[in-house]
């Protein structure tokens, strides 16, 4: 038993490095996708202090809209464009209907409002596009398919799906673009000001409403990218919503306001989950992927409650 837990998995890792590398790659890609979802959370949390529970459903909703529009005979790229417009309208609507009336409410109320939003979007998405899983139109969007196998001498080969590589690249591009946007543009500066202090930002003439609409739109774009990538790997369905909960442990590792934190947290969870499942999951009957991420986060919380990049909080009275 102890051998199975402490020695055997490592022996396997060493004796079958090709398989191990494959697992690592899987973990990496999953991690990137978690990181993308978490990124959407971070964007909104930074700018408004709202923990947007609906980010997961926004991913599904964006994917569904894209595929749904294409199914109605609209060419793929036009559908993509239209989806971006839809996400923009959604962002504006959320700002107008949900965020603005709830300014200055306690965090928990805002969180629950986004849970309500989740429910609304689930119902709305299913109402418009139907509840069945759909195939992502990856090919039509010009995303690469197929795979490349790397041989590792005599030790076997590692297979990389092209779509995964594309996902990783797009993630990197998006994070870079967001970083530039945050640090170099006027809106980015306003955004950071809002994140620091709502009232102070208001007093120097920054429009909160405009900033919020922008971040929700940005989060919507991130959701769209995530939806395409994730959809291409499996399919577009509401099951993704459960996956999106995994962003929570990711955020706990990385901190709620840190973009690099979201990426690193995502990768840690991605790797941890895949390695745990493949090498240790079998010992308890498998399927531990469904909760391992939370347990990792929980253990982490007990030792470093402020996250990897957070500052230690001093309580005052």
């Amino acid at each position, binding site marked *: 038993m102890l051998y199975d837990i402490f020695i055997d998995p490592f022996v396997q890792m060493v004796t079958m490095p090709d398989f191990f590398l494959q697992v690592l790659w899987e973990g990496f890609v999953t991690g990137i996708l978690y990181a993308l979802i978490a990124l959407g959370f971070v964007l909104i949390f930074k700018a408004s202090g709202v*923990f947007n529970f609906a980010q997961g459903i926004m991913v599904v909703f964006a994917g569904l809209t894209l595929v749904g529009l294409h199914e109605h005979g609209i060419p793929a790229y036009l559908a993509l464009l239209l989806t971006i417009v839809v996400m923009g309208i959604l962002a504006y609507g959320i700002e107008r*209907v*949900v965020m603005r*009336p*709830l300014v200055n*409410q306690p*965090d*928990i*109320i805002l*969180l*629950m*409002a986004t*849970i*309500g*939003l*989740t*429910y*609304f*979007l*689930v*119902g*709305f998405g*299913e*109402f418009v596009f139907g*509840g069945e899983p759909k195939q992502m139109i990856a090919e039509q969007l010009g995303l690469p398919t197929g795979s490349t196998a790397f041989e590792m001498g005599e030790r076997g080969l590692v297979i990389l799906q092209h779509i995964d590589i594309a996902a990783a690249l797009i993630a990197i591009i998006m994070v870079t673009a967001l970083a530039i946007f945050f640090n170099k543009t006027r809106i980015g500066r306003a955004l950071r000001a809002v994140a620091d202090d709502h009232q102070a930002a208001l007093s120097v003439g920054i429009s909160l409403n405009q900033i919020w609409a922008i971040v929700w739109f940005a989060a919507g774009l991130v959701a769209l990218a995530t939806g395409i990538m994730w959809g291409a790997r499996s399919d577009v369905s509401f099951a993704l919503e*459960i996956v999106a*909960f995994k962003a*929570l*442990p990711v955020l*706990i590792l990385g901190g*709620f306001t840190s973009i690099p934190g979201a990426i690193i947290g995502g990768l840690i969870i991605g790797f941890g989950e895949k390695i745990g499942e493949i090498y240790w999951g079998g010992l*308890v*009957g*498998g*399927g*531990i992927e*469904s*909760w391992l991420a*939370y*347990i990792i*986060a*929980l253990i982490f*919380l*007990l030792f470093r*409650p402020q996250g990897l990049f957070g500052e230690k909080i001093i*309580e005052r*009275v």
Partner: protein
Amino acid sequence: MFYREAGQFKTSYEADQSLFPIRQDRIGIAVLLLIAFVLIPLTANDFFLTSIMIPFLVFSLAAIGLNVLTGFAGQLSLGSGAFMGVGAYAAYKLTSIFPDVNVIFLVLVSGFFSAAIGAVFGLPSLRIKGLYLAVTTLAAQFFLEWCFIRIPWLYNYNASGAIEIPKRDMFGITVSGAEATPLARYFVVLAITVVIALLVANVLRGRIGRSWMMIRDMDIAAELMGIRPLQTKLLAFGVSSYICGVAGAMMVFFWLNAAEPSSYSITLSFQILFMVILGGLGSLGGSFMGAAFIWILPVFLKFIPGTLGIDIPAETVEHLTFMIVGALIIFFLIVEPHGFARLWQIGKQKLRVWPFPY
């Protein structure tokens, strides 16, 4: 005009601290109990009992459970569905092992298993708060769900992976299993729910209830006043999980007859949470109202168009329900964050001065 407390003077602290200090409220609650215990059993058909009243009561109890934790002690939980599951599986195992013991007793005992597990997952609440705590409870939700699937012992190695409730008698009347009459089930569920609700109401108006609210409103001040945060929070987790556990056990024993792990999924957790939010955080009466609303709205949506001759497909009803519930949650949070319970209060206030506006 009718709802007025003028002239009702209290001459003792006992009277002032009773659950319903106003006479009209006491009459109202008596009427409600009379309807629940006499009128409904006399008049209702099986459909009404099985599809509306029993689930309503089960969900009310679950909502009370979550309300204790979230509404009164201020600890957000997204795992109430799983804690209900613990109760259900515990009761199932207990009745398999002790088939001769009274099933109601076992259902009540099963809550303690749930309470113990709830307290374990409540441990991190000492160091973490709010959202972070929500993650702990999500961990509980997914971990426990996994246990329900992966530990075959829990469902007696049943091929279907589900638990099926055997026939159990009490005083010669079948109360659980497929043969039990809706009426018998209804009385059991009603009795358990009313008794637990009453006990919870008592706890909430005393020292312990106050200590929960202290932690909720200002945890630092509470601690500086001698409240031990860990014990207090764990007690809230325990009590809340106990109630949820009993509700979960009732759900399968007296309503569904069979349950699979997915019956206690995160969807259920959210459903309960919505009942609590819409009903009113920190209000027992609100829990009943929230449960009634969330449970009865889909039924309502399903049958009203039917009677009008409009045919709406079942999925559409479900989608509409989602949309309406979601929109209503946002609406309530914006307009009245304290839910139906607060609306009820406002209504009573208006009644008090009726027919004058002020």
